[in-house]
């Protein structure tokens, strides 16, 4: 589903560059190893500004979802209704990302708890790719 293109900034560039390279990363504190997503200028846990990136294995599970019928986002309105799922990473369950779960029927039976795998989808407004997820059972 064609999405708005994120515009990277100084803090987010590492994440989005990795998406363009086909890698899923999460911001990691070089001082205390805290993982955080979305990324911030400093570590939320210890306050350090020495932040890096840790590569994830690209697997997760569906934590929950809702089905959007009337979005404010004009770029998505022609695709309504669509699923917005919350994905919990296998490597870091405290980290959550979003997915439209392409290929999954839009009904009341979205398989919460099922395993998903990341892929990288092109977006509408630029060459920037984003992390998306598909159910793998």
């Amino acid at each position, binding site marked *: 589903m064609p*999405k*708005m*293109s*994120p*515009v*990277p*900034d100084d803090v*987010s560039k590492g994440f989005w560059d990795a998406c363009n390279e086909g890698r899923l990363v999460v911001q990691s504190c070089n001082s205390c190893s805290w993982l*955080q*997503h*979305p990324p911030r200028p400093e570590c*939320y846990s210890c306050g350090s500004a020495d932040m890096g990136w840790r590569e994830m294995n690209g697997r997760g599970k569906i*934590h*929950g*979802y*809702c*089905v*959007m*019928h*009337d*979005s*404010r*986002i*004009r*770029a*998505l309105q022609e695709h309504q*209704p*669509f699923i*917005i799922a*919350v994905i919990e990473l296998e490597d870091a369950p*405290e*980290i*959550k*990302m*979003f*997915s*439209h779960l392409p290929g999954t029927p839009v009904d009341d039976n979205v398989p*919460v708890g099922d395993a998903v795998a990341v892929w990288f989808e092109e*977006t*509408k*407004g*630029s060459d920037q790719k*984003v992390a998306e997820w598909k159910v793998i059972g």
Partner: protein
Amino acid sequence: MASTEWFQADRYRAKEGLGVWEHKGKAAIAGLGNSPTTRRWDGDLSTSLGAWTMLAAQRALDDAGITKDEIDGVISCPQGMGDEWGAERGYFPAPYDSEDGLSGVSAHWLVKNMGLENVKTTYHAPGCMSTALVAGAEVVGSGEAKTILVVRGTGNMPGRYHQTPGDTVGGPQQWTNPWGWQLIPQIAFGFDQYCRKYGSNHDRMAPFILNQRRNGSMFPEGFYYQNRPDDLNLTVDDYLASRWICKPMNMNDCDLPIQTAGAFLITTGERARQMKKKPVYILNHVQQRGVVRSSVETLAETEEFSTSIANKCFEGSGLTAAEVDVFNPYDGFTLFTQSFLEGFGWHGVKHGEAHDFYGDDIRVEGSHPFSSSGGNNGNGRTRWWGFYDSVQQLRGEAGDRQVQVKAETAIAGAFTPQVSDWLVLGTSPD
């Protein structure tokens, strides 16, 4: 008076462990005022937010039985919840020559245009009348000002609300907008998580929604009462058949954007006792600004936030859950209200029990008169009906909505479990 500062962040009571509020009972709400309501602004300056905020403020003065000369402070939430009028549509002669007075009303705009010549203290509070009210409680409680107006004008311009155009997105929304994640999906997702954990479902919201509308049918200041009384006769079938906005949230779980203005007059307890109406003392004020771990607010975080709000309300006022007579938590999206009910444990409701409670007798005549205001769902979007009703209930002036149980204490707040501000009120300052 050219501008106004934001109320100082360190003066909000945002942490647990602060003990009883040092100014408990020193400030009181002594006046209420609300303008008429309408669905949208039509460009008539007599119904602008500026004009209606002045009208609401005058009504609050009249309610207290004092004149504007006694006002020495104004606190405003300066922006409404709707979109801006926008310069492309053209502004008007002064004082309507900018957004100020049209899509929101600043404190200094009100001071200037209402001729409040003795005002020495003004502040702005972001986002919500509730935030301005807790700031007002602190300003009067601490003695910084003696008699103040707390106001908000909140409007609704022609056209669809808050549409988000474009094919690119930066800033914080770069993480959410590509998937369409915003506040509504967050709340719908949170409700789905709640139902999965506790074995409930959306249909079980119907008794609460219908009761909110019923309470709105007894609230003469409200939008539906004034403009759309037929919408207050919502049936279970109507509710269940209304279109999905973001399943499991339907249209009737969402409040209706409206154009209106409200004002609360806060003064010292001592001065309030000399004014026209029975004083309603402020026993505590509380702020909640929860920080989530990642991209979403999980159900565990929602429950943690609501519990913290309750802990702070109780700690600072000295009340217990069993001592709260009137309870008006926010309902602008109805699907998170159960979190407040359970977090406070009002009438003994525990986690997972709210929907059973909704099926009990929650009418204002009954023994569990939950949300006696009818909230935004029963009266249109303001975020202040709960405060308004709580004051009226404690005065014994709620008319057909007057609860039949004891009404000596009340708690009201808005907006979400993560971001909200609360007042604890009482008929006694102690």
